[in-house]
């Protein structure tokens, strides 16, 4: 009967209160994290082992989907080949170009804000509009072929020829990577001036400044860009969906497009989930590899 019932709750309330308040503030995120992240993440794993076509119950079929995906469905191999090629065409070239353009936009000449605005602006259009814009640019009688015509080359019908369709999409991706450019520009502006002065004192030239100061200093931003664009490009969809519909043949059949068709055109939810999980594992592996390789080229202040 004589339990210290009155005192204890008060003390623990005072101690608990900040934690409860804190969790209350982040609760909107906890809801979306649970229902829109954790639950779907696990559910798509479970669905991978089922056959489910939107009607009736999902049927457990063991490793059938996985076997089909890895060994029987030739389209999966095609989609993977296309997607990896697309990553290799866009990420290194896109990174190099965004570094060069960022350096150019970091020059102290008059009118630079104007150039920054106009270089970045086209990439805000995004999505379907940007895809259509580039469809016109790459048309058989479009401006690229007109320019090639001036030097006597007859340009191909870019989006409709097997050999050129994927490189054309890659060109579009590289030309509209405005955000990457701005991230690197921001990193360039953060490089401490005294480091350049030190190179001056040592009698180093522009090249020494770039190689020994600029590049190491912006390498974390470059690394971040490589990670984010690799993840993004692996999931590409809209370009192929709008510009080429995956064709000609399977020349631009992005993995994302194939997954979309399986899930939302053929309603093979189980098989599409297996495809989605394989994409997740591939992206995870690429990210881990990127982090491993980063040790050799990314410079962090305070190390060494």
């Amino acid at each position: 009967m004589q339990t210290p019932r009155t005192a204890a709750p008060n003390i623990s309330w005072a101690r608990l209160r900040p934690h409860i308040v804190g969790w209350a503030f982040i609760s909107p995120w906890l809801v979306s994290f649970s229902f829109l992240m954790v639950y779907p993440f696990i559910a798509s794993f479970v669905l991978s082992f089922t056959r489910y076509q939107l009607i009736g119950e999902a049927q457990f079929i063991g490793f059938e989907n996985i076997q089909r995906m890895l060994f029987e469905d030739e389209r999966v191999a095609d989609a993977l080949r296309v997607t990896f090629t697309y990553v290799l065409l866009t990420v290194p070239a896109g990174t190099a170009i965004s570094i060069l353009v960022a350096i150019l936009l970091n020059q102290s000449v008059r009118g630079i804000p104007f150039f920054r605005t106009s270089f970045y602006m086209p990439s805000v259009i995004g999505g379907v509009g940007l895809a259509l814009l580039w469809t016109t640019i790459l048309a058989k009688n479009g401006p690229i072929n007109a320019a090639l015509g001036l030097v006597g080359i007859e340009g191909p019908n870019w989006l409709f020829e097997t050999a050129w369709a994927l490189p054309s999409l890659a060109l579009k991706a590289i030309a509209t990577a405005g955000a990457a450019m701005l991230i690197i520009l921001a990193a360039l502006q953060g490089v401490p001036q005294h480091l350049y002065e030190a190179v001056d004192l040592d009698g180093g030239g522009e090249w020494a400044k770039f190689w020994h100061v600029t590049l190491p200093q912006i390498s974390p931003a470059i690394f971040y860009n490589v990670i984010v664009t690799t993840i993004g490009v692996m999931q590409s969809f809209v370009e192929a969906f709008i510009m080429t519909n995956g064709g000609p043949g399977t020349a631009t059949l992005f993995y994302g497009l194939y997954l979309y068709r399986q899930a939302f055109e053929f309603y093979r939810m189980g098989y599409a989930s297996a495809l989605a999980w394989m994409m997740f594992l591939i992206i995870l592996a690429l990210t881990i590899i990127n982090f491993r390789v980063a040790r050799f080229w990314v410079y962090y202040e305070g190390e060494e």
Partner: protein
Amino acid sequence: MSVLTSSWTKSKTTQRRLRDLLAYTLLAVGFVWFIFPLFWVIMSSLKTFEDFNQIPQRIFPSELYLGNYPSAWNSVPFGRYFINTAIIVSLSVVGELISASIVGFGFSRLKFWGRNFLFMVLLSTMMLPFWVVIIPRFLLYRDIGWVGTWLPLIVPSYFANPVYVFLMRQFFMTLPSELDDAAKIDGCNELGIFWRILLPLTKPVLATIAIFSFINVWTDFVKQVIYLSQDSTYTVAIGLAFLRWQIAQGDPVPGLLMAATVFTSLPMIAIFFIGQKYMVRGIALTGRTGT
């Protein structure tokens, strides 16, 4: 001695001039490269059908033909699609602002069990591929009867996008903690500190988030095409894709398609010019344009 110095400075200025010349040349090349596609599309939208059949096409239309605009506007019900998109976008932007600021405040100004761990979890979810969660999400929304409505496009905005939470948190961290302490002494609780003291100071980040989410929702074709199925609910992006497929099926009117591309891109261009400053700052901070 003085002669030597002056010739040295002279060579320094010539060097400087050469450098500027090189910079401007490259900037001009870049300008053409980045702006030309936009310019081409605008010019194409003013071309007649005959202009498109020239090989190679001329840059400028033979006459200023405005007819593509009304025919594009009427070829699919763009008026309704614009209204639909505006409703989806504005409700989403409001949701992103409310939820990201509340959660961002929690992660930056309050101390509680699991805070740092949960924040790391939040950051890592930014890397989770969209495709791995979309199928169960679709099934979940179907089971509660939301597929075919705008709800799957709008409601998640009210439950905190990690990228925007991160932006808010980074900004809240820069505000001095004395503000909270002073407010506490005046008898403010956490909600009061958030609402009355700190939120008014975060206008620049709120602007950044508003612009990012505006652009992202407006152009988010994938989700729209997955969740919407009736003409009356369609968005501008879907309308544009429709037009594209109609044309791909042998009704060759590229001028019309280009006109539609121009007027559906105008909101993006407008928001870019209004909020450029905030956008650039946000991209530099988060390294992305949201989601």
